[in-house]
């Protein structure tokens, strides 16, 4: 009798310490230094806003978040991820702007039975063959935005297209994506060296010589600023209209708005997307940071909300991995894009919109939704994923 009682009390003590005392630990890997540090800052701001709105608690437990800087390099991202998993013993890892950094760090997280909530990069291998039950995305698979853009080009009667993108994992995915849906002819394609090449004069000269109906580009971060500047200086705009994905965002718009007004792109989100959660996010963000959030911030905000939804479901007990995984798959929360429905590979099945650069009523450049291009779209790699 006494033995049983002792055992019961030990078990009770042990489990209660798991339930109440232990804070939820989240690691967040992003780029905080280098020229791309602006993006990482925006992601951090998005995540911080979400935590503020949750009173920095999830399922009754305190939340500790550890930000790590990958310095825009896969090897450093991998090191930092390793540290988060092995030394800090985090329950979740989130963040990752760049596909090549995510690819380098991916195995470290999922193989150690830690959950990885990708809040930007969505390389095709992770969506397909190398998908993993511990990986969840709050963004998109790389191809999808480009596929939406391909549809837009078809609708606008573009027959001859010129393509430019940086030569790395995401660039290749995006190019593959636009070619999946675009029905016309690709008259030229340049993959520029990444991240070293910042002068595109040689490529722009080729575009002019090829006389395409339109130019399609993917240049994220600072490359987008440089590209737009040179495109505007080359005076190509009147002959060759520009269609882009992830080249113009709410981070670069204060700098490039003047040249970018009216530019068209495709995205799952824009600040004016009409959902209750998005209104709460955008208003909160503008109040706290006095600027428009970018899609990077929106995705990072969602990644914290997704983790919160799962932790709440399991009452703060994150030790039962299967229960947490089931809760993550359900994604029972209001995302900025509405409800998230996960496909078998844990990428969201979602709508994509055509968006446009405008000047808002305060004279600030931002993006706004023009129309829906793809509904409930699932990425093309999901069928290759064996979960």
């Amino acid at each position: 009798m006494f033995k049983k009682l002792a055992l019961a009390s030990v078990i009770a003590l042990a489990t209660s310490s798991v339930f109440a005392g232990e804070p939820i630990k989240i690691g967040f890997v992003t780029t905080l230094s280098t020229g791309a540090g602006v993006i990482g800052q925006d992601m951090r701001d998005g995540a911080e806003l979400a935590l503020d709105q949750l009173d920095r608690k999830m399922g009754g437990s305190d939340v500790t978040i550890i930000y790590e800087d990958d310095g825009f390099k896969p090897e450093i991202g991998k090191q930092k991820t390793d540290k988060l998993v092995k030394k800090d013993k985090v329950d979740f890892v989130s963040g990752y702007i760049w596909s090549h950094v995510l690819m380098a760090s991916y195995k470290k997280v999922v193989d150690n039975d830690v959950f990885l909530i990708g809040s930007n990069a969505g390389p095709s291998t992770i969506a397909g063959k190398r998908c993993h039950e511990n990986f969840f995305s709050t963004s998109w698979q790389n191809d999808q935005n480009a596929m939406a853009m391909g549809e837009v080009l078809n609708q606008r009667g573009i027959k001859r297209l010129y393509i430019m993108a940086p030569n790395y994992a995401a660039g290749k995915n995006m190019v593959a994506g636009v070619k999946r849906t675009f029905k016309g002819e690709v008259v030229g394609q340049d993959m520029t060296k990444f991240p070293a090449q910042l002068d595109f004069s040689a490529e722009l000269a080729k575009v002019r010589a090829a006389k395409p109906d339109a130019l399609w580009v993917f240049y994220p971060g600072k490359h987008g600023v440089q590209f737009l500047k040179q495109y505007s200086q080359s005076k190509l705009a009147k002959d060759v209209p520009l269609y882009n994905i992830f080249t113009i965002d709410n981070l670069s718009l204060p700098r490039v708005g003047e040249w970018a007004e009216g530019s068209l792109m495709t995205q799952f989100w824009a600040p004016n997307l009409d959902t209750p959660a998005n209104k709460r996010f955008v208003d909160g963000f503008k109040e706290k940071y006095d600027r428009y959030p970018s899609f990077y911030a929106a995705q990072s905000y969602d990644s914290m909300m997704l983790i919160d939804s799962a932790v709440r479901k399991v009452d703060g007990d994150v030790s039962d991995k299967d229960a947490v995984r089931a809760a993550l798959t359900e994604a029972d929360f209001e995302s900025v894009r509405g409800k998230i429905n996960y496909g078998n590979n844990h990428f969201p099945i979602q709508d994509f919109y055509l968006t446009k650069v405008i000047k808002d009523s305060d004279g600030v450049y931002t993006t706004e939704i023009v129309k829906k291009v793809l509904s409930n779209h699932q990425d093309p790699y999901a069928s290759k994923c064996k979960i």
Partner: protein
Amino acid sequence: MNWLLLLEQVLNGFQLGMLLFLLAAGLTLVFGIMDFVNLAHGSLYMMGAFFCATFSEWTNSFLFGALLTIPATFILGVVVEMVALRRLYSRNHLDQVLVTFGLILFFNELVRLIWGPVGLDIVLPDFLNRSVEIIPGVPYPIYRLAIIVLGLAVALLLYWIISKTRLGMLIRAGASNREMMGALGINVQLLFTLVFGLGATLAGIAGLMAGPILSVEIGMGRSIIILTFVVIVIGGIGSIKGAFIAAIVVGIIDTVGRSFLPDILKLMVSSDAASTAAPAISSMLIYFMMALVLAIRPQGLFPPKGVA
């Protein structure tokens, strides 16, 4: 083969070559004459761009901003030489690499503190922000032409300084035989400070010219400085003439290679593979060339007199 396109690409290559020359001239002066390895040369380029962006905003004019940047980078170079580098001449190259690498980190952080992480933009005045058709049917941005013209002008000025003035005579002497120069009672200390200031000014001019095309960013010198080292190795360390010719050759090979290699590769492999492989191969072309030059003439194509 599209000849107009080729011509335009040669022009683009020439323009890149001019930027490389301005950087390489400063680097080779310091390296060749003072025997000092300055990895932080790219940081001076970055500072030139940031100065120009700031001054342009203050004066509301790109031209005034550019003019103010020239003395500002000269003073910066002199200060850096006097504060940090002066006691390193007698040390070996490894120590110099270490200290100047530290300077790179220092300048990056300094810029982050002063200007923030976002970077700046230099707005071009309207008369530079246009195109002209120097090749019929091919509008070419006036600003890029201006870079070529200014680069040539600086090259001529440097040629005049080095071949016709007393300072130039000392510089040439320094490149050939430093010990002898000291023994003849030349104030080597002062000469080195001046040369370093001149090198910094040239880097600053390159930075202010690159600013309006590329945006002004932390660490913007990093990618171009490697090409610059390639240029001075090919041209012959310490030789301005070598730097000039090598810069143009490297600029044209880089640009033309980037532009036509995908099409050439497409004849052999699938177009997707070609467009992926081409940027990698075209950036290797320059290193092939450097290896070739080093194998045949280890002292470079046009080494200064007395070195070969």
